[in-house]
């Protein structure tokens, strides 16, 4: 387990366990939690209160989902997966949807690491692909 002082997401230092774990975008979590919510309602009806952690998270992802259509969400993951991004980077980009190359590099500083092959052109293409999906949602 990475010690607190060594952790730094901007350099992708988040601990081996978490680098291996799958990072989910808010939009993906929204779909999963909504589905679970429907299941829970069916099983126990409206009377049983939901765990607070679940309820707050569901509220949050519904508010912060950039893509609402299940098909688009899948497309976003497919498209971003073609760019050799770490899971963490993919999720941050999918969540924040930067509009310019400059913004993308500011919110995902690990992209700037030399030797990763993410030149400005590649990042620009990535952002355009994202924009296309948003346009046709």
């Amino acid at each position, binding site marked *: *387990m990475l010690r*607190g002082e060594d*952790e*730094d*997401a*901007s*350099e992708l*230092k*988040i601990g081996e*366990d*978490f680098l291996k*774990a*799958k*990072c*989910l*975008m*808010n939009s*993906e*979590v929204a779909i*999963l*939690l909504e589905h*679970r919510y429907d299941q829970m309602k069916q099983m126990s009806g409206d009377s049983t209160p939901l*765990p*607070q*952690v*679940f309820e*707050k*998270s569901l509220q*949050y*992802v519904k*508010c*912060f989902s950039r893509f609402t259509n299940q098909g688009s969400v899948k497309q976003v993951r497919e498209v971003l997966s073609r760019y050799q991004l770490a899971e*963490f980077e993919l*999720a*941050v980009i999918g*969540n*924040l949807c*930067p509009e310019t190359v*400059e*913004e993308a590099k*500011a*919110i*995902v*500083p690990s992209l700037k690491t030399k030797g990763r092959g993410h030149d400005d052109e590649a990042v620009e293409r990535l952002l355009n692909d994202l924009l296309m999906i948003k346009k046709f949602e």
Partner: protein
Amino acid sequence: MFLKVELPWNVVIPPANLVAKGLMLKKSISLRLLKGFAANKATKDHGYFLAITTVESIGEGKVRRSGDVVYPVVFSCITFKLFRGEIIEGVVHHVLRNGVLMNCGPVENIFLYKDLMPDYRYVPGENPIFLNEKTGSKIVKDVLVRCVVLGTKWLEEEREFRGLVSLEGDYLGPVS
């Protein structure tokens, strides 16, 4: 950041429930797992526990002296954790003299200290706000703010995390 992780868990089935076999036993194990999971709000290492997505495997049960049987289960679930250096978006819920409090996902107390809000000034009043005089931008209750995580603190007794964030950096601040 929301994560999907695979975790091990030991599910204890008391002797009374062991009469059922096969599918009923599997159901009993799953139900107990769900209950145990829901009761466990968060841990320091994994963050907040949101929902189980799949039960990956149920191993062979081991009988304890008490007669209970312990089943080693591996399951996948959704968790939430804040990472230092991560850029997040949160919602302001309180404006204080020395900063604002935000929530992000299940984390309810994320503090943005006034000295980490460059160009913003506290304006007191019935509904206090933080105002950026240069841009006219306001940080007030219910505003969405993009910020960078400086650090988190795990509170063992309350079983929750507190976060500390900053607006120092490009492309950070209120989100329209």
